[in-house]
Each structure stands twice: as structure tokens, then as C-alpha cells.
């Protein structure tokens, strides 16, 4: 992966008072957040806080009920998901969003074909498979791969478009300690290459290991935001999220 040229002063993603309603349920309310280029930020909060809904609004899976979403300075609030993806954002979903009935290589091929010339597809697939350490698997049907392998495959698929912003929804969920360590290394390495990363995670050890800044959500709103050490020691955050222990 080529190192991206970034300007750390420049906003890559701005959420401006974004809200989402599902019928009578207010899933997200007036949520605002700004991410700079090259930033590695974590979004945490108890279950049902609205984190995944924010991700889906950013990607265009859900359209925001109100508010604005800016990506690299451009208002993308009303753009369809496919157009947002082509502008340089990508996602690994909470439940692995892979094509289970197809092979590993076919999955990456589909993810890459809009962004990589046909003659370079096989080389790119090889590179991505190697990047996420699933080369030894060969080319199995994805439904026969473990949960962790599917997670890495989906990260490889998300990287196939060479995005500027990567959203990772629980990248360490369901992984063993060694797999979690590798995922942490991978995410850090991707960020070192200039990729801006926003991720959701419940494993606080994982969060502490890689994130610099954290945004906490609670009942659909922004609760607190700041450097990881400050946030995890905030008594209110401990009360609502981490528990009193």
C-alpha cells in the first residue's frame, strides 16, 4: 500500500448535528463529530447507543433524517451509498459483509473491480490477501472460513478501493487474543500509511492499544470526546459504559 499524503489540519469527515429516526424511535440525535486526515479514532458506547447507525449514515446505507455529512469538504448528505463509496470511503460491517457463497478471491475481485484495471486485478487480489495474512487458506468458499478470517477478508475487501477513510465496525469482535493482536497491528499499520480510520469497538484493551482519540455515544447523542486516557478515566464514562468495577 502506497503511503498517502495527508494534511493533519484538514477535515476528512464532518458530522454536523446528524439525526436519525426510525418511526417513533430516535436512534441518533444532533450528533456532531469532526475527524482530521490521518486520524485514528474510536467510537464507543453501550449497546444501542447509535454507533452503527452513525456508520450507516456516513456510508449512505441510512439517509440522515436531519443534519449534514461532509466528506473531504463536500456535502454528501443526500448521495447514494455507491457514490459515497466511489468518493473514497469504505466500511467493514459489524456482521461480516462478505459474499458467503463465493470464493475468497471472487469476494476481493468484486470489491476491487470498480477501482482496479482488469489486467491488474489478480496482482491486487494477491497483495490484499497477503496484507491480511490469509494467503495460506488457498481459495475456499467464504462460508467455510472462520469468523475471524471472514473479518480480515472483509477488511481486505474494504481496502480494495484504496479508500481515504475506512470505517471498521467491531473489527475485533469474536476474535481470540492472537487474532486481536494481529488486527490491532494491521489497523495501526494502515493508519501509519496515512489512512484515516474510524472504528467501533467494545474491547477496551484493543481500543487502548491503538486509538488516540475516542468519542463516546450514549442514547444516540455525543456524551464526551477526547484523548483515550482522559476518556477512560472519566467517572461519568465509567458509570455509563465501563461499569463501576
Amino acid at each position, binding site marked *: 500500500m502506497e503511503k498517502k499524503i495527508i494534511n493533519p489540519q484538514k477535515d476528512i469527515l464532518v458530522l454536523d448535528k446528524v439525526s436519525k429516526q426510525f418511526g417513533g424511535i430516535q436512534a441518533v440525535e444532533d450528533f456532531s463529530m469532526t475527524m482530521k486526515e490521518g486520524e485514528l479514532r474510536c467510537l464507543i458506547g453501550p449497546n444501542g447507543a447509535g454507533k452503527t447507525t452513525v456508520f450507516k449514515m456516513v*456510508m449512505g*446505507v441510512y439517509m440522515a433524517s436531519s443534519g449534514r455529512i461532509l466528506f473531504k469538504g463536500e456535502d454528501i448528505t443526500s448521495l447514494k451509498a*455507491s457514490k459515497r*463509496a466511489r468518493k473514497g470511503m469504505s466500511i467493514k460491517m459489524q456482521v461480516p459483509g462478505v459474499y458467503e457463497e463465493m470464493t475468497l478471491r471472487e469476494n476481493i475481485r*468484486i470489491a476491487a473491480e470498480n*477501482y482496479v484495471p482488469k489486467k491488474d486485478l489478480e496482482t491486487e487480489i494477491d497483495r490484499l490477501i497477503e496484507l491480511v495474512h490469509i494467503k495460506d487458506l488457498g481459495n475456499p468458499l467464504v462460508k467455510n472460513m472462520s469468523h475471524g478470517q471472514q473479518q480480515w477478508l472483509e477488511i481486505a475487501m474494504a481496502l480494495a478501493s484504496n479508500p481515504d477513510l475506512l470505517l471498521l465496525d467491531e473489527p475485533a469482535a469474536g476474535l481470540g487474543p492472537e487474532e486481536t493482536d494481529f488486527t490491532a497491528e494491521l489497523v495501526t499499520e494502515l493508519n501509519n500509511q496515512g489512512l484515516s480510520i474510524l472504528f467501533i469497538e467494545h474491547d477496551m484493551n484493543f481500543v487502548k492499544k491503538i486509538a488516540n482519540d475516542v468519542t463516546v455515544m450514549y442514547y444516540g447523542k455525543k456524551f464526551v470526546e477526547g484523548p483515550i486516557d482522559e476518556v477512560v478515566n472519566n467517572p461519568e464514562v465509567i458509570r455509563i459504559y465501563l461499569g463501576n468495577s
Partner: protein
Amino acid sequence: MKKIRELCTENLVAIAMLLFTVLFPVFNSAYKVDQFTGFYITCFLSFSIVLIWGYTGIFSFGQAAFYGIGAYTYAIVSLCSDKNLTIVAALAGTLIAGLAATLLGYFIFYGGVDEIFTGIITLCVSIILETFIVQTSGPEYKILGVWIGGYNGLNSIPKLRIGNFTLTNVALYFFVAAVVFAIYFAFRYMTHSNIGYALFGIRESKTRSELFGFKTAKLQTLTFGVSGAIAGLGGVLFSAWSGYVVPSTLSVGNSTIAVVMVALAGRKNITGALVMTVIYSFITQKLAASGNVFSDVILGIGLVLIVMFMPDGLLEELFKRVDFFFKKRVAKA
């Protein structure tokens, strides 16, 4: 020898089918050749269902409607014009069926209609069209001066002509077979192309494909349009071959039989659909000729058994198992 081993069962079956098709007229009577022309014409309906359902994951009960639109358009245009314009009539039939499917697809896919309701909408379209055509027996129902004919349909439809040459019997057989295999090879090529993978992705997960930058509604609409055009071409050839067209040509029953044939073969497998359609058409014709009225019952029972025990389809499963068997033997050797 190694190359022969690398040939999978599906490819061997395709080669056998091609040889069978080419050699069939050499060893059979003109009557049988004519019958098999009809069987190959049914393949267009099956191919359109493989494309839209097997490759793209959109379940359509309305392919017979496009087949019927193609058949009626060919009949009307060829009856109202000079006999030398049958090629224009054939193109018009294919194009209008394709446009009708594209228009319907536009409202379905850009409207965000989900899979189950797409099946219901296409089923309703077939019923509405058939009901409408049945009611056009009055003299006021004329298109381009040709009376639609209501329940009795249209008769004495001109044969397809290329220049001064009229396509009948063996010539028509080879023309139909050539078009069937052209579409077959185009499908086989497509399964390894970017567009093929894009469709497979949409079939597996529409949302995920959108997140990879695919304009899914556009791709689904265009694919639905192409599948309608393929069905329409089948209808055109049916009209030109049989010389008649009746409202039941575009009935749900016609769509259902094609859907069942494709499901039995394996909806993702074009070779299976080709072979199954010809075999099923042949068996149905044999049963009907012997006075047996249970061909649809046999088909229904077959479907239930296949869905229960071989959800990927009989021929798809057969291809896989034979490949597996020979791979194991080669590995042992």
C-alpha cells in the same frame, strides 16, 4: 491427456450437447427436427430466467409476459407488412420486449421494491397482460391494422425470412440452435467477466455491492431489460416457427414451467438449464403424445424432491459430484 482431465463435467456436457445439436438433423426425420426446434425455442425463456434469477438473484414470474410481447409484436409487424420485413418484425419483437422489461424494471428497482414483491409484481404483470389479450376479441382491437384476435390469438404468421430465403425446418432448426448457443457462450463468457461478478455480488448482497460502488438499481434494471429481450426473442422465434400466437403464450403457467425447469437444473448453471429444458420438453412431448396428462405433476414432484434434497439443482449437483469423483481418482493415482 492432462488437458482432458482438466475439462470439467459441465464443459464435457456442453460439448456433447453441441455435437448432439449439430448431428441431430443428420439422423432424424424432418418432423423430429421441427419438434426439437420448438424445444430449443423454449431455452430462450429458461436463459432469461437464469440471467435474472440465477445470476442476479431477482425472482421473476413474468418472463412469459416478455416472451408473449415478443411473439405478438413479431406476429403483428410481420402480418401488417411485406413478408420480406420479417427480420424487422423479429428485431421489433426483441426490442419491444426488452424495452417493456426495462421500463418495468426501472419502477421496481429504482423504487426499492424487495425480492418477494418483485416476484408478485411480475406475476401480476403476466396475469394482467394475458387477461387483457383474451379480451381483445372485438373488431376495434387492432394494432397496425392487424386484429389481435382475443382468445383465438393470431394465425398464419409468416415464417422468418432472410433476404429471399425462408427459414423452415432444418434451416430454422440451425438458425435457432445457432442463436441459442451464441447466447449460451455469451453467458459462459459473462460468468468470468466484470459484469458477471457484479451481478453475482448483487445476487449475494445488494447492500454490500452498493458499498463497493456498484449502481445496483441501474445494473438490475439493465439486466432485467436484457432478460426481457432474450425472452422476447424466444417469443419471436416461437411465432415464426409455429405460425400462431395465443394469449396463453404469456401466461403465468408458461413462466412457472420455465422457472421450475431452471430450478430443477440449478438456477446458476446455464449448461444445466439448456440440457434440462431440452430433456423436459422432450419428455413432456412424449407424455402428451401418449395421452398422459401428468407431465406437470411429474415436474412438480421432481421440484419438491430437488428442493428438499438438492437445493442447488439436479444437474448442478451432478456436475459437482462427477467432478469430485474424478478428482479423487486422479489424486489417488
